[in-house]
């Protein structure tokens, strides 16, 4: 993957596949401790212990269209290349939590990439018969925080206007882009 936002997109897709209705994504850039932490937590169906024990192995997947699972091993490799690691906690029926850690200043650490596009894509991908998956995205940079929550957007839109209306998605994309730009460049 070219950047970390693509890994996040891919791993959050696992949560959607696991029929989560809420996925929390958080990114913490902390220059002081020189750590970049990415957390993806869902309330989906979780994994049985045997699967959890083997899921970092690329030859493990429950999908049927292809025999190799790649998403988790790719993220693990990216973390390990940067003096970090990937931890997965999961239990059947209550959900899954992935914590990916990188050394922030590591020369091989991929850039974070475009999180606005990742969120917009996830919102589109989270549409199902029952409605749509909710996402909470928290981005921390050296102690300052930006939060985006689809439940707040839904409250404004009401029941008749979908999150996936093209105009709404465009608004969300710009809103996140601006929020992150403020976090990075805004006044302290």
């Amino acid at each position, binding site marked *: 993957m070219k950047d970390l936002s693509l890994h996040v997109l891919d791993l959050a*897709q696992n949560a959607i596949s696991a029929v989560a209705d809420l996925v929390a994504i958080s990114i913490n850039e902390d220059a002081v401790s020189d750590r970049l932490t990415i957390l993806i937590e869902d309330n989906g169906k979780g994994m049985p212990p045997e699967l959890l024990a083997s899921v970092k192995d690329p030859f493990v997947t429950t999908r049927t269209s*292809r025999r190799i699972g*790649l998403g988790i091993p790719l993220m693990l490799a990216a973390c390990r290349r940067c003096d970090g690691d990937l931890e997965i906690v999961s239990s059947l029926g209550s959900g899954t939590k992935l914590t990916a850690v990188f050394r922030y200043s590591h020369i091989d650490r991929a850039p974070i990439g475009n999180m606005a596009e990742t969120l917009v*894509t996830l919102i589109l991908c989270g549409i199902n018969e029952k409605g749509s998956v909710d996402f909470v995205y928290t981005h921390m940079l050296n102690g300052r925080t930006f939060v985006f929550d689809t439940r707040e957007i839904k409250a*404004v839109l009401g029941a*008749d206007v979908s999150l996936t209306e093209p105009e709404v998605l465009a608004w969300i994309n710009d809103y996140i882009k601006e929020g992150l730009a403020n976090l990075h460049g805004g006044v302290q």
Partner: protein
Amino acid sequence: MKSIQELEEIRRRTLETINVRKDRSGTRVVVGMATCGIAAGARPVLLTIMDEVKKNSLADVIVAQTGCIGMCRLEPIVEVYRPGEEKVTYVKVNEGKAIRIVNEHIRQGKVVEEYTIGAEDK
């Protein structure tokens, strides 16, 4: 700054047009968004399609995702389903190809043959 007020205006505008488009049987555009697709560039393809649909006000087009289609080396893959027509599968799609697919196939009904899986196999 993007404001919630703007979002409320979008809501109002959308509600005004929503009744007009109910029960129209539209075109479905599906993008493969598994690991292989994402790594090959499916995200910008999906968003480009959304963008073109919005620019051209193609209200009866549904854009959706699917998992791994099982042809990883041909990703990004885009499938177009038009009512009453056979499914068309486009392979190795990028942003430029996506724009042509929306404008020629979805808007005008002309399949972009050179990007289809049939052309790739030749």
